[in-house]
């Protein structure tokens, strides 16, 4: 594949990552979790808070940039932006940070996130406070379409009816993801599960069973983006951004009105990100794919070109997504088992894999990793990351 003319290819690096513990019932506020993860990421890079001159807080959970000025005593914040794309916000923030670094607007951009949902409203209440869900709130909530599980289930059902995709194939994703969470250690759900466990878990919104659904959990995650030139002088092996793009599905605010229910925004982003990277699905050593629901992983695999539309069910069978399989996926346990950190944990894990510091879940010699985002009603993002050289 050829690279697009003007691009962010190798123009930015992820130089620091940080996470808190993922848990339920955290006593820390969302802002406290964001600051803890941010300090870890900044020090991981070998930087001090005062080195940060850009902040892109992630999504609905992010405190405004001003909170970071206040808490870190920043005197010269030169770049900030808002990326309101739900679970695609982490990739969107990485794109914004990379663009700012590449343009010379900022030297070191912090992307923080953190949430405490144990003490607040659940997803079925939260989403109706968001402008992105305005149409759902007005036209669909009165009928009883309230939570993401109910809004997304018709996408999965349509896929099953058109292509013969099965709930047992969704289960393959839940099982391998849980296995990886157990190997990672910092995860909410670590007890191994089987396909039969999945099949006997209760129905939430048919075809989604309990074990198709991601967790409601607390925690913080953050990363720091700098130029590749500056990255060489920092503390960690550099991880380069090879390609990145965001994409929005048709009818982005209503799944009901979407022409093709089986496609999401990453279908538009992926060709651009692959082209920018000069890489494709066959080059990927490890994949961290946004997994708010099992089906959403399967759908993105198709939309990114790992297999054709309709073949995702067969693609995920036979342990392909397990460590040791052809495409180790969500090696941290994802949103399904590690914790729902809006996909920021996917970016952190991709960086650790490329540094070779992913512990028991390390993919030997990983050189190319992807992280994806999926937000709100299907906004999508794909980042292709590569192991840089000193």
């Amino acid at each position, binding site marked *: 594949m050829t690279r697009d003319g003007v691009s962010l290819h190798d123009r930015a690096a992820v130089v620091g990552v940080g996470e808190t513990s993922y848990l339920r019932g955290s006593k820390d506020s969302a802002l406290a979790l964001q600051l803890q993860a941010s300090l870890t990421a900044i020090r991981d890079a070998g930087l001090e808070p005062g080195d940060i001159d850009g902040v892109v807080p992630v999504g609905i959970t992010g405190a405004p940039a001003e909170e970071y000025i206040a808490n870190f005593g920043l005197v010269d914040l030169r770049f900030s932006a808002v990326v309101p794309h739900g679970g695609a916000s982490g990739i969107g923030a990485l794109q914004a940070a990379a663009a700012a670094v590449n343009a010379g607007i900022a030297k070191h951009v912090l992307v923080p996130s953190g949430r405490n949902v144990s003490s607040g409203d659940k997803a079925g*209440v939260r989403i109706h406070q968001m402008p992105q869900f305005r149409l759902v709130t007005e*036209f669909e909530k*009165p009928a009883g*379409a309230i*939570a993401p599980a109910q809004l997304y289930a018709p996408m999965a059902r349509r896929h099953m*009816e*058109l292509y013969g995709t099965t709930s047992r194939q969704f289960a393959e994703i839940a099982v391998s993801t849980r296995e990886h969470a157990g190997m990672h250690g910092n995860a909410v759900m670590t007890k191994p599960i089987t396909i039969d466990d999945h099949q006997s878990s209760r129905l939430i919104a048919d075809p989604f069973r309990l074990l198709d659904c991601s967790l409601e959990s607390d925690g913080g995650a953050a990363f720091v983006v700098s130029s590749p030139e500056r990255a060489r002088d920092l503390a960690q092996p550099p991880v380069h951004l090879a390609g990145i793009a965001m994409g929005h599905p048709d009818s982005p605010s209503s799944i009901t009105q979407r022409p093709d229910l089986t496609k999401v925004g990453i279908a538009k982003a992926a060709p651009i990100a692959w082209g920018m990277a000069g890489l494709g699905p066959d080059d990927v050593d490890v994949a961290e794919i946004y997994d708010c629901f099992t089906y959403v992983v399967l759908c993105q695999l198709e939309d990114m070109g790992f297999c054709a539309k309709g073949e995702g069910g067969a693609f995920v069978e036979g342990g392909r997504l397990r460590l040791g399989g052809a495409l180790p996926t969500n090696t941290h346990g994802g949103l399904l088992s590690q914790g729902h950190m809006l996909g920021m944990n996917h970016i952190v894990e991709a960086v650790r894999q490329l540094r070779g510091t992913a512990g028991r879940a390390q993919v030997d010699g990983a050189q190319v990793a992807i992280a994806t985002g999926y937000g709100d009603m299907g906004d999508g993002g794909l980042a292709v990351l590569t192991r840089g050289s000193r």
Partner: protein
Amino acid sequence: MTDDLSTGYWDGARRGVLVLQRCTACGHVRHYPTLLCPACHSDTVEPLEASGRGTVHSWTVAHHAFDPAFAGELPYTLVTIDVEEGPRVLARLEPDPADLRIDQPVTIGFAPGAGGTPVPLARPA
């Protein structure tokens, strides 16, 4: 340009009729309501009463109440319907058929939902 985008829909819903938007410039029929026609960008629009005929595009059966107001109604079926005029509507389906299938014909009306708001209600045709 008016921001009262939904008035036509809700007036129709209270009468039991699905009302969509039709662009008076190019004839494009749309739902949910928008200020501008996505096809020609005109802001002139008229209400269009739908025939009430449609076919099943997809569905889900809710088994968990994410809002206590719906706990007493479980399980219930939400069906995504291709409306004859072009757009789609998300409706409750009654009675719950044993074997729902894509392209199955349905008729669309309205019935009071939880809290009294009129909710699209589909029945197998």
